[in-house]
């Protein structure tokens, strides 16, 4: 069902390698074990440390967002793939409709900012957005982290969930 993460932003012509694809419930255990796999894969391919670091960081932020906020038992899909010297991290998950506004707010903000502005905003959030104790993790800093690392604007989309009108599909694509 979530598999259209593949064709929402990309066709198979757009990629020449698949690093991995995962679909299912996302817990911290999954983040860690898939993360170790990703690190191994990145070490095997001849790629700059900087790119590998950014990719891993984006992977963690996206996965932990899904682990925290996704509807349907924190189920989601994530794909890391590439073409030529580019890498893409794509994700899909269902969210509860009321969360759309906050996600849109952050993503629209970062897409209209220069890198320097994003850095400033990141530091501002560090100063003021303190860690919560109630289980919410403050997604703002996570989106700024993605924006700082992505080499192109972040692509995102929301689509209706035909099976549940209280929910939406949320798609994300980050490029390195």
């Amino acid at each position, binding site marked *: 069902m979530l598999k259209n993460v593949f064709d929402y932003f990309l066709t198979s012509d757009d990629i020449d390698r698949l690093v991995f694809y995962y679909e299912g419930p996302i817990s911290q255990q999954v983040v860690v074990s898939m993360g170790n796999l990703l690190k191994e894969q990145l070490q095997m391919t001849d790629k700059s440390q900087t790119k590998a670091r950014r990719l891993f960081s984006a992977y963690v932020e996206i996965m*932990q967002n899904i682990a925290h906020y996704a509807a349907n038992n924190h189920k989601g899909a994530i794909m890391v793939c590439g073409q030529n010297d580019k890498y893409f991290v794509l994700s899909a998950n269902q969210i509860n409709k009321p969360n759309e506004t906050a996600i849109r707010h952050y993503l629209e903000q970062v897409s209209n900012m220069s890198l320097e502005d994003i850095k400033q905003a990141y530091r501002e959030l560090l100063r003021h957005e303190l860690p919560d104790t109630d289980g919410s993790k403050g997604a703002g*800093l996570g989106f700024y982290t993605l924006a700082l690392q992505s080499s192109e604007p972040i692509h995102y989309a929301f689509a209706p969930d035909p099976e549940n009108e209280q929910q939406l599909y949320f798609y994300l694509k980050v490029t390195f």
Partner: protein
Amino acid sequence: MSDLYLPAAFDTPEIRLNAAEKTLNISGESYPENGHSSFAPVLKHLETELANSSADRFVVNFRLTYFNSLSAKILYKLMQLLDNHAAQYPDSIAVNWYCDAEDDMMLDFAEGLKADFAHIRLDIDTESPPNSA
């Protein structure tokens, strides 16, 4: 005075507080899901040790290769604690931030801390970078 030692896990760093030496070492990767429960005891312990050490020199060494956004907030909070102490006892806190010269995000982060926490002497060391996991 008491020591604190937390071994590294895949998603949490090694944390070693030596009360006699007055050092705190944090090394490795940090991307726990719930930063508060992972780090609250550490912050609490550090607070007590700082209170005990008053004007004595206390050295903190960071050898982090990666941290998630949640950990960034915890690190900021930890620095705030150190800075408050150093405001009360000038020159009591020295922080050494070891990182790879090519890790621009990490460098930016450390530079930001240096700018925000003026009471702390923070040295960024790219000569002996930490080993990445």
